[in-house]
């Protein structure tokens, strides 16, 4: 008997009137878990009943605890007829099964009815007593923590990242069972809600088992989706990244966090990482402070700091190609449903020196759902890889053997893997999967970013002392290292224009970089980023079955190509050179396909400046045409100039010669992989108007090009005071204030015109998206200056003539003045000298620089004592005048600035400077923290309901997450048969979304939390029938429930993220 679940029903309030005669209600409660049901007494004639029940005890298997929700039903007692249901509450027990999460669930829950919505609230108390079960054949995986967050959760550190886990379960959809014809809509909805709740519980348990098998204790970046396949069934699938996490706090009161005391915390970090791993302490330390969670990796190899014997860039590609063959020899096992678990290293492999790599490549799928990484984890980024396939759905015959669905995904993942290999990469990061279903056709999509990872965090076997793969001893600075090409220059997978990195000048970088991950916090960025979207509609003939599927799959490559071209044009129009968080969604409807690509454009300092856009006419002779072209060209040039100003992109003019691609393919347009994989390049063409920069030529000889130009120029710029991005953090903004507003917006557009053209459709779709953005800016105008982050657009074609766009995002305020101050008082002389110094060694050899790199390392780790002493003295100094808010940031900027210098150069003077500044940095949080806590203490307002903040990001500005309470994964159905009375579809959906928010908040509050991070709305499926006055909507939301506290005298979490930017901007100024 591994567990005892106890529940107590305390009271109800605001119940609906169930008895018209008395205007009161005789309420009682049924508590059900598994097949056991308890009842409370009837509380007669009250709308605010006090039951104060005994503890209802359920003795259950932990397997059931994981799968089943606790079901609380509130009913109205009726002596003569059947009792009427008021509503239900489903409580997920999972957070109670993990010792580190919540210990009790207690609070007011909205009582929810699928027909009437929220009807009053009920106060419930739930506890679980778990008994240890040492049975190794157990089916449960209690204790494995789940996180939706796609980075290592703050307040944890990753001891090891095991890799990809996936699972799917299938069932018949109750809505399509024969019994649905005779039961009430309420019963049908409830059956569906319950089934999905059960299935996601089961899925989570199964994934947990896989994680345990791999030796992990957590799943990060857990992404669960539903495929409502209609007749053919219901699929719940999930992917995630298995990790071994260590909580940073030990659990005791004051000293819980390693970085609790600002004086000792960074110092201890410094001791943790560089002293054990003597390799990259300067980087290491810089990074631990610059990325969100300080993650001093215990498992770093303790190798000597001797420089690698050869240049890292060339062997890199050579090794990867050799490992390719190696990979193909690897016997693949574990196919089918449970098969993608990483395997132990084969004995043969250990012979080889590449065993670091085997850690990844022995894995069937070296995929990571993470989008941001511990410092040093990401070595190189190749580009976006994606794969899609069109499938015809058939009935799932045996739910226990979901082989077909598994095989489908298997196929796609293999394809992704081979694309990554083609890019010279051994891993895929920022990986995600999605589907779009219309009738019996289903498009499966997967995408990610091909990358080379530092394998030290992968597998214990690879961490043997003395064995290191030198290619990972990355000497290039973290601000540009990830941009360097991972593939072989002589054997490029696609034509690309390569140049030497504009930052380190040692390795090659592509001209454009597309990725699905977040911008690494340490990356050097010029100016600010912005949201870039490509939108596309394509008509398709209505068809059935095979014919339909073929038609769709024939259209797909063209759509991908066009979306890609649009993105590229828009990127150039904004004078940027890279995309982060790229997400391409292709949605299928009966008579059209919708494509929406969203990403955040950034100017990476390491990459060359983008060329302009050149308009060329096909018939140059015609005068009127010529004139037309000139006007367009002028408009485009003006827009580019305006955008440069808007996003503050003023990269330094470098007189470097462009090292061209060794493959001369000047006129070829970007080639698409057969399987529609995205590549990181787009071919640059003739060197035209923009000086020496290559320009992107648009020929307006066909309607397509005209359309392109129009879509380019119709994108309205964001109004002043607003910024937008679809990534976690906005490049160039780092001083967030505490204003946070998460929102969901849904629009459905009915196409009235029966015979629309592709062009007309495109216009409608573009306007739809643009207007949505405009309306956000308007609604949130009171928050200016503010940035919309993690703008997540989802498109769907719910019916033949409907286009649905769903957006979830968060608006965050930031301090504008601080930005200005920071950019203003930057010491320009230092920047200048920095550039000069750097230009002296533009092509410095890697071996040299890496040895240079090691010197300050040993220096610092050699004198930890003195560092501490000096830091303390310095803290007093700084404390005396550090009451200004910006001091800390200024300091950090200064520090980051100098650190970079220290890390690249060999001069003694620079080193010592870096040293002293870094020691100052260690103590500076103290005065700053104090002032912050003073400010925060006054602004707490008293309210009887806990305020629960929600954000799609992994952090809340101005706060620090002290505890993760468990995953929130909720599925609701709402139906109405009185649509008009509820205010039409808008009224219906508005109420429903508000209800979903409130239920999420209530569950979080009951767990003791005050915020949801990494919140997302996975599904918002609306079906309406206005003629029958009916509508139905399904919503699935997920996130991580957390407790966060205002930044007090402890190291502020969000501002640690800031540091990355600060360092980046400092570098910008410097170069």
């Amino acid at each position, binding site marked *: 008997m591994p567990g005892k679940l106890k529940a107590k029903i305390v009271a109800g309030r605001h119940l609906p009137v169930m008895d018209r005669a008395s205007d009161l209600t005789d309420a009682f409660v049924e508590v059900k878990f598994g097949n056991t049901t308890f009842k409370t007494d009837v509380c007669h004639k009250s709308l605010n009943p006090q039951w104060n029940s005994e503890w209802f005890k359920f003795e259950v298997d932990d397997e059931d605890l994981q799968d089943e929700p606790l079901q609380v039903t509130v009913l109205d007692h009726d002596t003569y007829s059947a009792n009427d249901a008021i509503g239900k509450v489903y409580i997920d027990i999972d957070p109670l099964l993990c010792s580190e999460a919540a210990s009790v669930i207690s609070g*007011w829950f909205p009582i929810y009815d699928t027909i009437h919505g929220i009807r009053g609230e009920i106060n419930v108390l739930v506890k679980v007593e778990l008994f240890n079960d040492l049975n190794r054949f157990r089916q449960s995986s209690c204790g494995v923590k789940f996180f939706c967050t796609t980075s290592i959760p703050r307040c944890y550190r990753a001891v090891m990242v095991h890799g990809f886990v996936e699972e799917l379960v299938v069932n018949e959809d109750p809505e399509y069972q024969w019994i649905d014809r005779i039961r009430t809509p309420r019963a049908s909805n409830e059956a569906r809600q319950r089934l999905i709740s059960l299935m996601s519980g089961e899925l989570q348990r199964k994934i947990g088992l896989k994680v345990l098998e791999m030796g992990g204790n957590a799943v990060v970046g857990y992404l669960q989706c539903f495929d409502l396949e209609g007749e053919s069934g219901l699929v719940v699938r999930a992917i995630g990244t298995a990790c071994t996490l260590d909580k940073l706090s030990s659990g005791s009161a004051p000293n819980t966090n390693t970085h609790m005391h600002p004086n000792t915390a960074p110092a201890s970090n410094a001791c943790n990482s560089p002293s054990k791993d003597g390799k990259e302490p300067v980087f290491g330390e810089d990074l631990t402070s610059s990325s969100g969670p300080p993650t001093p990796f215990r498992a770093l190899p303790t190798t000597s700091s001797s420089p690698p014997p050869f240049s890292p860039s060339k062997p890199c590609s050579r090794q990867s190609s050799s490992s390719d063959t190696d990979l193909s020899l690897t016997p693949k096992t574990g196919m089918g449903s449970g098969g993608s678990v990483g395997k132990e290293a084969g004995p043969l492999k250990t012979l080889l020196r590449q065993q670091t790599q085997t850690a990844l490549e022995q894995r069937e799928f070296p995929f990571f759902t993470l989008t941001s990484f511990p410092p040093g984890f990401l070595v190189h980024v190749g580009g976006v890889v994606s794969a899609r396939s069109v499938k015809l759905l058939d009935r799932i015959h045996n739910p226990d053997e979901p082989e077909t669905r598994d095989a489908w995904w298997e196929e796609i993942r293999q394809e992704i893997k081979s694309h990554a290999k083609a890019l010279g990469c051994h891993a895929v990061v920022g990986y995600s999967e999605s589907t779009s279903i219309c009738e019996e056709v289903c498009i499966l999509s997967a995408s990610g970013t091909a990358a080379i990872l530092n394998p030290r965090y992968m597998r214990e076997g690879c961490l043997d002392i003395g064995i290191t793969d030198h290619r990972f001893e990355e000497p290039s600075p973290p601000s540009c290292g990830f941009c360097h090409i991972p593939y072989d220059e002589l054997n490029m997978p696609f034509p690309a224009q390569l140049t030497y990195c504009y930052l380190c000048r040692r390795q090659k970088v592509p001209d454009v970089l597309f990725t699905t991950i977040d911008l690494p916090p340490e990356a050097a960025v010029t100016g600010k980023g912005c949201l870039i979207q490509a939108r596309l509609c394509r008509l398709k003939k209505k068809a059935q079955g095979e014919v339909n599927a073929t038609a769709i799959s024939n259209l797909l490559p063209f759509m991908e190509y066009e979306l890609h071209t649009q993105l590229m044009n828009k990127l150039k129009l904004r004078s940027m050179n890279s995309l982060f968080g790229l997400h391409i969604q292709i949605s299928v409807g009966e008579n059209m396909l919708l494509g929406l690509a969203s990403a955040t454009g950034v100017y990476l300092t390491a990459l060359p400046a983008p060329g302009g856009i050149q308009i060329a006419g096909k018939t140059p002779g015609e005068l009127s045409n010529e004139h037309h072209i000139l006007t367009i060209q002028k408009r485009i040039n003006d827009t580019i100039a305006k955008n440069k100003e808007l996003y503050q992109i003023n990269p330094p003019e470098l007189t470097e010669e462009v090292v061209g691609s060794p493959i001369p393919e000047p006129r070829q347009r970007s080639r698409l992989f057969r399987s529609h994989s995205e590549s990181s390049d787009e071919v640059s063409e003739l060197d035209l108007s923009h000086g020496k920069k290559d320009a992107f030529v648009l020929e307006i000889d066909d309607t397509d090009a005209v359309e392109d130009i129009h879509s380019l120029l119709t994108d309205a710029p964001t109004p002043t005071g607003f910024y937008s991005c679809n990534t976690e953090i906005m490049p160039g903004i780092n001083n967030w204030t505490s204003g946070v507003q998460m929102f969901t917006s849904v629009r459905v*557009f009915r196409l009235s015109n029966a015979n629309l053209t592709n062009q007309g459709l495109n216009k409608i779709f573009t306007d*739809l998206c643009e207007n949505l953005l*405009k309306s956000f800016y308007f609604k949130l105008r009171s928050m200016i200056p503010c940035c919309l982050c993690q703008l997540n657009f989802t498109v769907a074609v719910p019916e033949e003539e409907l286009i649905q766009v769903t957006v979830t995002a968060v608006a965050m305020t930031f301090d504008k003045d601080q930005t200005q101050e920071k950019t203003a008082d930057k010491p320009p002389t230092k920047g200048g000298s920095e550039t000069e110094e750097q230009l002296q060694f533009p092509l410095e050899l890697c071996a040299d620089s890496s040895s240079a790199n090691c010197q300050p390392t040993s220096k610092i780790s050699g004198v930890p004592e003195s560092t501490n002493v000096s830091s303390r003295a310095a803290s007093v100094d700084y404390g005396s005048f550090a009451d200004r808010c910006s001091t800390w940031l200024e300091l950090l900027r200064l520090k980051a600035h100098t650190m970079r210098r220290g890390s690249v150069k060999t001069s003694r003077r620079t080193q010592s400077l870096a040293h002293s500044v870094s020691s100052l940095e260690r103590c500076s949080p103290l005065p700053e923290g104090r002032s912050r806590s003073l400010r925060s203490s006054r602004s707490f*307002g008293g309210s*009887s309901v806990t305020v629960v903040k929600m954000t799609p990001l992994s952090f809340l500005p101005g706060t620090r997450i002290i505890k993760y309470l468990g995953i929130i994964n909720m599925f609701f159905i709402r139906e109405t048969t009185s649509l008009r009375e509820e205010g039409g579809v*808008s009224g219906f959906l508005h109420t429903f979304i*508000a*209800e979903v928010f409130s239920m999420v908040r209530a569950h979080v509050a009951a767990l003791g939390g005050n915020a949801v991070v990494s919140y997302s709305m996975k599904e918002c499926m609306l079906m309406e029938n206005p003629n029958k006055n009916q509508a139905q909507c399904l919503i699935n939301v997920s996130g991580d429930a957390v407790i966060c506290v205002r930044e007090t005298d402890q190291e502020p979490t969000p501002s640690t993220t800031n540091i990355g930017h600060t360092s980046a901007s400092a570098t910008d100024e410097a170069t």
Partner: protein
Amino acid sequence: MTMELDVFVGNTTIMDEEVYQLWLDGYTVNDAVKVRMDGGVMEECEASADVLLSDTMDQYRTFQMCERLLHSPSKLGNQLLFQIPPHRQAMLIERYYTFDDAFVREVLGKKLSKGTKKDLDDIGAKTGVTLKSCRRQFDNFKRVFKVVEELKGPLVENIRHHFLLSDKLARDYAAIVFFANNRFETGKRKLQYLTFQDFAFCAGQLISNWTVGAVGEPSVLFPSFVCYMDVDLDKEFLQELKELKVLITDKDLLDQHKSLVCTALRGKTKAFNEMETNFKNLSRGLVNIAAKLTNTKDVRDFFIDLVEKFIEPCRSDRWTAADIRLYLTHYNNSAHILDTFKHQVVWDRYMGVVKSCIFKMYHD
């Protein structure tokens, strides 16, 4: 763009105070959009009419959904559906219960019944308040009345506690409830010159001096232990008022009173002659009002009587406000010197209120 569906929901409910006011004022969505466009909000953020329409619709829906909660404001504080910061909640409630003086003036003292509700469109037409807004205001009056009617304890406190209103607004509602409960006549032509605030002030005076609750000094620590009603006038007191009749029925007393008052007033005002000649008339008027207050019908006519019997004669004699003050002060005080007049306490309780009511009501 014809949008089939268009919603925007924030985790913290977004509400624009300007739109809220338009909604409260009963503007339709389209009219509200027009008003906002004229207000120049579009230039502020480069918005288009579409954006404004969509925003207005969203806000209107939100307000409609909130309205149910605003009917019992204490629920707004612990409901879970909308996350609204406390100061915004207070704003929502306060504004929802705020009324137009022009409107309330029309229904003041009327029975808050279906019958009156039927006349709302007339009142709306007359006052320029939209019918929707009239309904809201009327329903607010009715709702507050219904809740407070049966409650014990101080009226203003009860209203403030149950409806979470500001002190000022709670006092206004107390006046409305008090007037509705006692059905004071306020609609006569002669009373038209009086504003709602005049009446509200008088109601405050009556509530704090002439009701049952006014007698016992409620303990500061345990106000709830004192059981009294604030909505009804103190019946005993009204009975006792009959005793004041002696001031006009007893010829000696009347003359004595007059001579005392005249002695005190002589030389202090230009209107002395008028005061002297009118003394008996005025005194009879005031004392008769007091004596008749046992009749519910006469209670209703309290204000019209004050105007007819006192204010109008004075006004026709062109007394200034200072004259009134002077006269009434001495009129009140002199009664204390009358040795045969034994009802000093009742007299003060009566005159205190009448005095301040007349002061308030004596204007153009």
